[in-house]
């Protein structure tokens, strides 16, 4: 790994080319990207998530997310065994009342769980990039919208900061940026996916629990995955057309 100065000089031009593509450029300027050819979403494979918080940290670094606010966060669910009192009556339904924690959004991981009873799992959360998104519906001025490639974005130069979209999101994915005073949320790393890169959270996930998917791309592995797995979205009763797909989602998750 210790490259000599000579090796470095040879390799540098190649690296420079690769990195140029990483650096900014608008979708109109990148000839290889046509918005109408894509329809973005994400797959979250719950059995793979170890709750390390790498995605939360990566997102905050990549997108300058202010402390205490989250474009993505991880929740740890604990569905206990059926609780019974001394007279043998069931006292609660763990499916309805799971124990959920997300200390600082799971940014620094989770405390080790010692209680072996019940079932544990981690649920990474982020904007669902809904196709029928309630947040873009309520924006009074058109400052948040679904891009032609299916990403819910905020125009921060146009946003009033009325927070109506924050109220309208059923998933709690939006916040008002404390210093910019405009709505802020996951952009699905729009600056990356339009350059052929994956999102920062997917890039940083050590177990592949997150996968960026392009539903318009016939070669995307998501199509095969959807055929062979039981996949669910969050709060389907909200009919938001969410494009954040969860593999093996537990019924207690909301």
């Amino acid at each position, binding site marked *: 790994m210790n490259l000599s100065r000579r090796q470095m000089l040879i390799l540098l031009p190649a690296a420079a080319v690769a990195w140029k593509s990483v650096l900014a450029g608008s979708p109109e300027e990148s000839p290889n990207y046509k918005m109408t050819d894509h329809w973005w979403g994400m797959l979250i494979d719950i059995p793979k998530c170890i709750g390390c918080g790498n995605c939360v940290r990566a997102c905050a670094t990549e997108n300058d997310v202010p402390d205490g606010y989250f474009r993505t966060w991880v929740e740890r669910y604990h569905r206990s065994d059926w609780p019974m009192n001394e007279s043998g009556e069931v006292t609660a339904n763990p499916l309805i009342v799971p124990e959920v924690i997300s200390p600082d959004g799971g940014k620094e991981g989770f405390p080790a769980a010692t209680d072996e009873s019940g079932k544990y799992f981690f649920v990474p959360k982020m904007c669902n990039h809904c196709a029928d998104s309630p947040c873009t519906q309520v924006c009074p001025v*058109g400052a948040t919208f679904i891009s032609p490639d299916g990403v819910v974005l905020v125009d921060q130069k146009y946003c009033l900061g009325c927070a109506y979209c924050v109220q309208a999101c059923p998933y709690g994915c939006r916040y008002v940026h404390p210093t*910019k005073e405009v709505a802020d949320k996951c952009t699905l790393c*729009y*600056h*990356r996916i339009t350059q052929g890169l994956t999102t920062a959270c997917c890039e940083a996930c050590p177990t592949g629990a997150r996968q960026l998917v392009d539903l318009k791309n016939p070669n995307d592995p998501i199509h095969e995955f959807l055929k062979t797995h039981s996949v669910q979205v969050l709060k389907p009763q909200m009919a938001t057309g969410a494009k954040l797909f969860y593999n093996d989602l537990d019924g207690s998750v909301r």
Partner: protein
Amino acid sequence: MSIFKDAGHLFRFAGLFVLAFLVFLVVRHYVVPKSFGQYGHYRGAAIGEIAQHPAKFAGHEACETCHSDVADKKKAGKHAHVNCEACHGAIFERLPVAEQPKPNLFQRAVALVVHPLPSDPPLLRHAEDPTVKPVLPDTAVLCASCHTASAAKPKGFPQVVPAEHSNGMPCETCHQPHSPGMATPVAAAGGAK
């Protein structure tokens, strides 16, 4: 004739309305951004602006253009799916806050009123200046952040109680991070071919 005379004041009131509406239309014409409505009810140019945001994670392909030796080694091992920046951190890092240029008094006064979007502070670019090195992670912290045992983690995921596992020895004594199986580094490299 006289109905118009006696209702004249109403026409004046209505005239005010029409005038205000015309002024509104003219102002609207100049104020609404040109790209508004290009793709839908929003500013089309916003898409391009959002795509301009500078990336901090270069992606493993960028790293592998130079560090192909590590890539090959990693491919054969258990960390094949762990991308470089998952452990090494984003290659483009912000300058520490202390080194960022400070806004002057006038800029701060303006910022109080109009809240401009803060411009992005400069980035350290390992690609342009290879002497700027990403921080080497401390394995004691890094490995533990994933592999510390917890009843909450998926059962098949390798996990240990660090204090009991290594007797305080650093992880890399036995496990090479790029190919962490118990085999010797030589064997791991051989397996990669």
